[in-house]
């Protein structure tokens, strides 16, 4: 995991909410006056699941994690590797239209 890895995020210039995914208006106030910026790609796993009946196009077991990046930005990411425990660190990257995460134990 690279602590300095970055990820493209969005900042709402109206209400200053930072958010992912970057497409679309601000989820808090609906403003379209948003700018892109590079933020840390490393965050903490809040929750995760191992899905045995994923949506069409995905293979089981399919793992998803809710990850909190700095500034309280949250992202739902496909996990490459085993299901991470809550609290584990994860690095997030954008792969086409899907966020993917790789995690490692916190200790």
């Amino acid at each position, binding site marked *: 995991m690279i602590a300095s890895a970055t990820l493209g995020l969005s900042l709402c210039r109206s209400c200053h909410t930072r958010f992912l*995914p970057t*497409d679309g208006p601000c989820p808090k106030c609906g403003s379209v006056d948003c700018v892109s910026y590079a933020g840390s790609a490393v965050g903490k796993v*809040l929750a995760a699941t191992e899905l045995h*009946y994923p949506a069409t196009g995905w293979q089981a077991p399919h793992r998803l994690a809710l990850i909190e990046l700095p500034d309280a930005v949250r992202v739902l990411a496909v996990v490459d590797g085993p299901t991470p425990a809550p609290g584990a660190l994860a690095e997030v990257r954008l792969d086409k239209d899907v966020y993917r995460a790789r995690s490692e134990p916190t200790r």
Partner: protein
Amino acid sequence: MTVHVASVGMGRFGKRPEGLIDLSAEAAHLALEGIGRKPIDLLVVGSMFAHGPHGRESLLPRLAGRLGLETASGYRVDSSSGTGGMAFHAAVLALETGRFDRALVVSAEKMTDRSTAENTKDLSSSLHVSEVASGATMPALAAIVTSRYMERHGLTSRVCDVATVHARAMAARNPNAHFQKPVTLEEVANSRPVALPLRLLHCSAISDGATAMVLEKGTGPATVLGLGQGFDALRIVDREDLTSFAATRIAARRAYESAHLTRKEINVLEVHDAFSPFTLIHLEDLGFCGPGEALEWFEKDWVGLNGRLPVNPSGGVVGRGHPVAASGLAEVAEVALQLRGEAGAHSIGTRPKIGLAQTISGIASHNLVTILGREAS
């Protein structure tokens, strides 16, 4: 203008051979017989899948014609899995204007003739496209919520098991429920994984079914005392808290305020447990206990038929089955049946005076709370 539930009509939920119109008509006829077939001037229908390429479009005119309601006004509502609750609220609001005298509300779904993949895809329409693009489904996001709830409160998946055992014990007393047999903690814990920590028996089942109800102006044994709705961010990443549903808290506050009462006056509760651990979250969001405290209510059976607050005496969504649009109306119907003394083998120990029904849409993005009472406030 006061409105009351004059009659309830429900057929059996489960795998049924009939189509959507036949299921709807069956429930509607039962409700109409309950009022001696008095004239209906408003028909409100709800169905999540009654449109699109499945040959089920136009439920409203087809059902109106089937029931001989050519002179009634009507409309169809949709709020995904909250559709039934929304149909009830829409009918009450229309009657309260004074424009109509008597409404028939019918909410129904036909699901078992479709593949699991088709149902999963259509149910996912209530999720955000970015979540679905990641392979998420309803159970996946419910699992994320459950995982977070367990982590936050230091709990294990036993919370899910206990809630399912309760739901199935209640359903076993309800002849209209999809599931007629109780289950043990071991059976639940060993059922096949769906989206861990959620297993098959923690999840509501694909079912066919319909619920109908006649609402009239005036008061009766099941009078509408309070209504409330609330919304929350569709994407779970945009929510401030995952272990509590803001939409329920908003809806409950509005319902309590409009009914001029507090949760202490509620005698029976029917909540939307699309996934069994949601029952615990709902109990907390409705104000009956603090965050993370609901497990004790199940462990001590305070939620049983003779408990301090019977919860989901119908079996809830997990026990009764989940024909999605029908469930929300079934929740209100169960409270009405309890208040009217018509719940039969699943009647709670003491006939209640006031009951509350809660319904959720999707992963709790649009929630509704309905309070009914034996007397107008």
